[in-house]
């Protein structure tokens, strides 16, 4: 089992708001002959989602306004001779709704046919294939031979809308989700639908590219392959990828994300709906946080440099050696921590230094003090660490309050002889990396725990040890976001087999023997029973995540 956080400072998960408001009055309606209770004032399409039923749609998205243009969410309402769209019709108590009748099915089939007559059907080269709304709907409602025998409308292909998004107008079904996103969520208004009728095309105006920090959300919400991500484009077919939910470590917001990976590594990240953290969205910067996890960027083996000789060794071996050196080292040892690690890891290493090493010289490395508290108003925060708050709370609970100046002075005077740095996972977020390396390398013995490769660290001479640690997808643990919400994540995959987490490192350093090491490794990676509830508070009530998902 995971050790529980002793700190009382970690805030309890906030009461969920909005979607699960306990005050919401319920009304009973009948969907496809089944009585269901839905919230008063919901639209019919929301009622379908709330009751876990399936309904065809493209333009409706729970995070955006209602457009009502795809005309696919047709339902039959008893007493109304005409089919109605479910997204713009509010439920009334006693309403009898049906989308399984032959009439609706035929309407949906035709609706799909209208979508497809000008669609190029180039699924083989389309990145969306495998997670495409058109493919899914076709398999579910279509399965017909198209009677379209005329020439298709030709439109622009492979248009760079911005640095991250590529447009294929021919595939576009003009659901306007992306345009509504830039108008309503990012409020940047780069996208528009130009021309009219079947000549209409999505586009940007020249000189105003889609370059905001949320642009890739348009790719996520695009139900077809019209918008594709420049980064992910053609790199992998989606059916070769597995996915798992975790928390983004790009900043202190802690957006709930899904990482997509295979044995070669991670390929992309997408947001997961959590009304208490990130809603439906995540930022583009956060989406890059898979890159430093992949093998190319990682330190694979431990490395020890002493008296000019460099030697590679397994991390475990180095850990045990370190344990021997550090035990009882006293106040001449110091520990530097960044906000990249989990609460559990902080607790382990801080208490190790306090009790086993015997020092309270533990310091917090803040990467960008000037912009630390900035916030873009939507999701992106200046504190580009996933767990600064968790670190501060652990330090507070352990009664540690050291300033960076003390450390620098200590190194200068020689009072501090050994420094252990739990370095940043995402080095790109630490512009002062070089400076700090120069500053810290003045110490007699430097131990740098890092997941990523770094040229400056490699170039260090003197008494230096580099030890590969696990990245956030390789371990279970919890992160406390800026608002004090503690989010537990599970291990996703192993990228560097030789790397250790800080908890494992502490166990190894304590020299409790191989048996214990194995046990502790297993313990860290066991998924605690509560995890499913703790990760992304409120997701249990998530009415918008069906097995199929909202594209």
């Amino acid at each position, binding site marked *: 089992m995971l050790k529980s956080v002793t700190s009382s400072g970690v805030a309890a998960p906030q009461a969920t708001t909005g979607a699960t408001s306990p005050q919401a009055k319920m009304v009973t309606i009948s969907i496809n002959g089944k009585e269901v209770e839905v919230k008063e004032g919901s639209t019919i399409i929301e009622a379908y989602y709330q009751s876990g039923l399936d309904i065809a749609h493209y333009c409706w998205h729970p995070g955006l306004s209602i457009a009502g243009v795809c005309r696919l969410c047709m339902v039959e309402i008893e007493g109304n001779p005409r089919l109605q769209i479910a997204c713009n019709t509010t439920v009334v108590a006693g309403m009898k709704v049906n989308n399984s009748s032959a009439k609706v099915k035929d309407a949906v089939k035709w609706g799909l046919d209208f979508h497809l007559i000008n669609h190029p059907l180039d699924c083989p080269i389309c990145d969306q294939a495998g997670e495409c709304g058109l493919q899914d709907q076709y398999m579910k409602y279509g399965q017909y031979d198209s009677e379209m025998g005329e020439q298709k409308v030709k439109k622009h292909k492979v248009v760079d809308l911005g640095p991250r998004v590529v447009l294929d107008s021919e595939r576009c079904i003009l659901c306007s989700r992306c345009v509504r996103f830039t108008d309503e969520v990012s409020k940047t208004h780069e*996208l528009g639908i130009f021309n009219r009728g079947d000549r209409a095309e999505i586009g*940007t105006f*020249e000189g105003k590219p889609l370059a905001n920090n949320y642009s890739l959300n348009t790719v996520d919400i695009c139900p077809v392959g019209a918008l594709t991500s420049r980064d992910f484009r053609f790199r992998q077919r989606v059916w070769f990828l597995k996915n798992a939910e975790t928390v983004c470590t790009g900043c202190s917001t802690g957006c709930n994300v899904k990482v997509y990976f295979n044995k070669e590594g991670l390929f992309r990240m997408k947001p997961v709906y959590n009304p208490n953290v990130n809603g439906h969205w995540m930022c583009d910067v956060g989406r890059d946080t898979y890159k430093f996890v992949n093998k190319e960027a990682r330190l694979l083996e431990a490395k020890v440099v002493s008296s000019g000789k460099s030697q590679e060794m397994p991390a475990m071996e180095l850990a045990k050696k370190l344990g021997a050196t550090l035990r009882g080292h006293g106040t001449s040892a110091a520990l530097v921590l960044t906000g990249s690690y989990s609460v559990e890891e902080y607790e382990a290493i801080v208490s190790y230094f306090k009790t086993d090493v015997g020092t309270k010289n533990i310091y917090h490395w803040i990467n960008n003090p000037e912009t630390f508290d900035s916030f873009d108003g939507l999701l992106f925060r200046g504190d580009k660490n996933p767990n600064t708050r968790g670190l501060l709370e652990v330090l507070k609970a352990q009664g540690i309050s050291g300033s960076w100046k003390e450390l620098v002075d200590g190194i200068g005077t020689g009072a501090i002889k050994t420094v252990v740095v739990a370095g940043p996972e995402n080095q790109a977020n630490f512009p002062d990396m070089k400076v700090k390396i120069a500053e810290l390398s003045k110490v007699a013995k430097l131990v740098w725990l890092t997941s990523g490769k770094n040229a400056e660290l490699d170039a260090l001479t003197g008494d230096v040890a580099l030890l590969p640690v696990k990245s956030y997808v390789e371990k279970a643990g919890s992160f406390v976001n800026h608002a004090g919400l503690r989010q537990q994540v599970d291990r996703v995959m192993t990228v560097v087999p030789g790397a250790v987490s800080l908890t494992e490192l502490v166990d190894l350093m304590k020299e409790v023997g191989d048996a214990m090491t194995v046990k502790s490794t297993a313990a860290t990676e066991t998924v605690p029973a509560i995890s499913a509830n703790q990760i992304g508070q409120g997701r249990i009530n998530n009415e918008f995540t069906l097995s199929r998902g909202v594209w």
Partner: protein
Amino acid sequence: MFKLSDEGLKYVKNELTRYEVKQSAIIRCLYRAQDENGGWVSPDVISHLSAVMEIPSAQIEEVATFYTMFNKTPVGKNHIQVCVTLTCGMLGGRELCDSMMKEAGCKKTGDVSPDGLFTFSKVECLGSCDTAPMIQINRDPYTENLNTEKGLELVRKLRTAGGAGASGKGH
């Protein structure tokens, strides 16, 4: 780079406050800018209007491309819009357009004639079906009750008027 004249700027500033929301001024300002830009809305025009009106350029582009009376390509001095819908179509509007185009030296609709005087468009119903077939030159009042001879005559007349510009109000 396109820039509105001083009067044009004044006109735009005035239109911006004329309606409840400033977006409502887009159509009139586009007309004005189109006139000042020789009859068409170039990307420059939209960038400039976006800056002057403080409205996202994509929104102005949306409006400019949605409505047919804004030309997205250069047009000749006389933009002749021939109605070809229902009644005019039945009574020879399409044939009229073709023969006028041939006379003016335009290969297809949307082309500017070699002398720069003519551009033809086939447009949808202009609301003068009793006088079919009929045309509108630029944004002037209609020229009605035409037939092939009258149409050819009109083209010749406009050509003779030449650089002076037969139609009064510009585009």
